[in-house]
């Protein structure tokens, strides 16, 4: 990215916004499935986690030492063992009366949502600041 572009860091800040938004969506999805006993394909729902990774290339994709914000490398299953709950009345219970549930901690997901929301705000401030700088650049040498 050119160091003297009109709108500094617009792409970086928006990549941050996108990533945090995605993280919040995944956390909300985990929360919504906290008590799920099955999901698509009959498999048990597993907690999803977002993998962030920093980008060091410019807008044209040229690899280099420039700053490109953050990208989501993937959304992966957490891999924790499912939670086993005794519920003999449940349709998904096995012969011992145990039901397997997704192992999701609501507290953990709430923490994730709060952290994502704060980080979203920070990225939004960066975007606003960049916009202000661009506005000031445009107003250079204008007569009053």
């Amino acid at each position, binding site marked *: *990215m050119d*160091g003297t572009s009109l709108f500094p*860091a617009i792409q970086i*800040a928006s990549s941050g916004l996108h990533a945090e938004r995605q993280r919040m969506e995944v956390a909300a999805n985990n929360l919504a499935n906290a008590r799920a006993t099955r999901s698509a394909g009959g498999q048990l729902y597993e907690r999803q986690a977002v993998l962030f990774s920093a980008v060091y290339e410019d807008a044209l994709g040229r690899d280099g030492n420039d700053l490109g*914000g953050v990208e989501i490398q993937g959304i992966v299953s957490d891999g924790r063992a499912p939670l086993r709950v005794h519920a003999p009345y449940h349709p998904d219970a096995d012969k011992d009366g145990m039901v397997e549930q997704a192992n999701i901690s609501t507290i953990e997901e709430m923490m994730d949502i709060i*952290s994502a929301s704060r980080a979203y705000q920070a990225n939004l*401030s960066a975007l606003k*600041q960049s916009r202000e700088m661009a506005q000031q*650049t445009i107003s*250079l040498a204008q007569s009053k």
Partner: protein
Amino acid sequence: MQDAIVIGDRQSQLIAKMMELSQRRQQVISHNLANANTPGYTRQDVNFGTQLQQALRAESTTDFDAIRPQVVEDHESPARIDGNNVEVPSEMGEMMQNGLTYQLLVKAFNTRTSILRMAMQGAN
């Protein structure tokens, strides 16, 4: 010093250069904020203080062009448990400071041009 008075003089060049550096700093801070939750990320910083000092001490005008802001990794800030050492509040503080600096530079540039305009128009 008075080699080109109207627009390309030393002060204008300095203001323009500092605006460029300020924009670069804004990029770096945005990058840190975007990666505030990336595990293992090391915060970046821009380094141009010594280069700027050298250029200011030297008398010729060409020295400002030689200033290239260097993006360096900051390993001194303590890292969190996930290896990330970005602290959002301090980044926000730095960003605010940078924004005010930019505002100041714009003001300086505008004042200079308005003085020039006044001089060209005369007192009427």
